[in-house]
């Protein structure tokens, strides 16, 4: 299992040719929420692979159940990199996505989330959904780390199954926290800008 995980990570790294830059943020095993722009099905896998091994083992991407449970291969890969599957269609009262995430990570794991929800089709980054805000509100101790993923949408665009091995770049920026009494819309705008800012650096 461990070996296959490492092999999967290596394969993802080779294919995406990803350069990883840590800006004002160091790899750490403390509990974090990495939130990134979403442009390709490979996002979760590549971001997870680009973390150092000891952190990777403690980090669980959040992904859509309807995509990752289709077909044996996807199910196998999802299990390998320890995905938390979220049902986008049926959201129950005490089973809201942030609740599920918080329950699943306990006091051990970190998360990888894509707050835009669906992958954006245009180049422009979509508005953030509120899940990140509730994560920050219910678990104020989590570091919210912005990540910008560049060029991966060209490696595997929507609707394609064959990847093209271009070089991509992952930039991990300084953590943010939910301020006391900060309104939801205000916080989500600030979080989105934290990701966008990394594009320019």
């Amino acid at each position, binding site marked *: 299992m461990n070996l296959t995980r490492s092999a999967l990570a290596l394969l993802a790294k080779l294919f995406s040719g990803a*350069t990883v830059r840590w800006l004002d943020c160091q790899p750490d095993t403390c509990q974090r929420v990495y939130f990134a722009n979403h442009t390709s099905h490979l996002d979760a896998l590549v971001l997870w692979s680009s973390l150092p091994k000891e952190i990777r083992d403690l980090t669980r991407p959040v992904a859509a159940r309807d995509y990752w449970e289709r077909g044996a291969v996807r199910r196998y890969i999802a299990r390998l990199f320890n995905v938390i599957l979220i049902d986008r269609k049926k959201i129950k009262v005490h089973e809201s996505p942030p609740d599920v995430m918080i329950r699943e990570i306990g006091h051990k794991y970190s998360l990888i989330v894509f707050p835009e929800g669906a992958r954006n089709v245009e180049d422009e980054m979509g508005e953030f959904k509120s899940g990140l805000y509730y994560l920050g509100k219910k678990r104020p101790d989590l570091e919210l780390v912005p990540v910008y993923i560049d*060029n991966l949408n*060209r490696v595997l*665009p929507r609707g*394609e199954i*064959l990847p093209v091995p*271009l*070089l*991509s*770049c992952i930039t991990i920026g300084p953590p943010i926290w939910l301020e006391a009494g900060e309104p939801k819309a205000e916080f989500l705008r600030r979080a989105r800008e934290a990701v966008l800012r990394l594009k320019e650096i």
Partner: protein
Amino acid sequence: MHLLAKPAAAPLLGQTVFNQLDTPTMVLLGVVLLMLAGAYGAVLILRRQPETTVNAAVVRTFSYRLRAWWLMTAILVSGLFLGRIATVVLFGLVSFWALREFITMTPTRRGDHRALFWAFFLFTPFQYFLVAVGSELVGADRDGLYGRLGLAGKDFYGFYSIMIPVYASLVIPAQIAISGDHKRFLERAAKIQAGLLICVYSLSYAPALLDMELVQWQDGEMVPWTDPGQKGEENHNAKLLVYFVLLVQIADVMHYIWDRLLGRHVIAPDINASKTWEGLVGSVLTTALFGLVFTWATPFTLAGSAAMSATIAVMGAAGGMTMSAIKRDRGVRDYGTLVQGHAGVLDRIDSLCFAAPVFFHITRFYLHP
């Protein structure tokens, strides 16, 4: 029509774990190692000089370059020792990486995705596969499997020399058209075609040198170009490949040195602010002198070797200028900074790419029986 007899089947164990390289190749590789060691010594000395006498940035650039040369030499030497096929595979990997850098830099649209997939996973490996087959089937049994497939007796030169210009450059626009996006159609097709042509097709001529049957002129007669000490045919051309790569690199360095010493008239300031006409002329002349010195490693005459070296210098400079133009257009300084932390393969092989097909075809035109 092979003048040289095919070597007897190689013994499985013992002497042929590694390929035996002939003496001139070994001498040439020794010269390369000496030059690199000398350059390394120069860097060590320059690093100890006070900041006021030497430009630290220049020394740093030079030592990066030197590291790339060490790596290139290591790849080439290990390839040659492992045999022709291994060399072809190594060049294929370099091509693949260079194409990756090239396409990453050029903006493409969603509709190009399939065409790009074919470029990376069909045309690039297939081109190197054809180069690897080369003339292996020329002596194949006509009643055997290859004979029944109609491949026995075929020299694959006839295929690999046109595969990308004919097949790839027709398939790619067709594939983009099928994908249904007509925006900037010609421009997009041309970008992928140019990437394949420069990074894959042109570079593949370098390892193809290993598979060319050559003659030389002796007393007005054409005789096979062989080394008496060399029995197998396979590595016979290794020294020609080393000669070619060495001279391309020498031409690069000479261009740089002459630019610094005498450079007055910049060729195209908007494209490359440091390349000058004086540097080009100086590089062509000094490279030709080096070519004279290394004539013994080639089937060329003295004048021939000088002319070939001058051609290499001109083509290398042309390659550097062309890639600079593409980089300026895209606003990248060099391919290494395109994506941070990656060594820019394309920066190192641009002159090689432009010189290889010309060197190959002139050599073949004059000296292939």
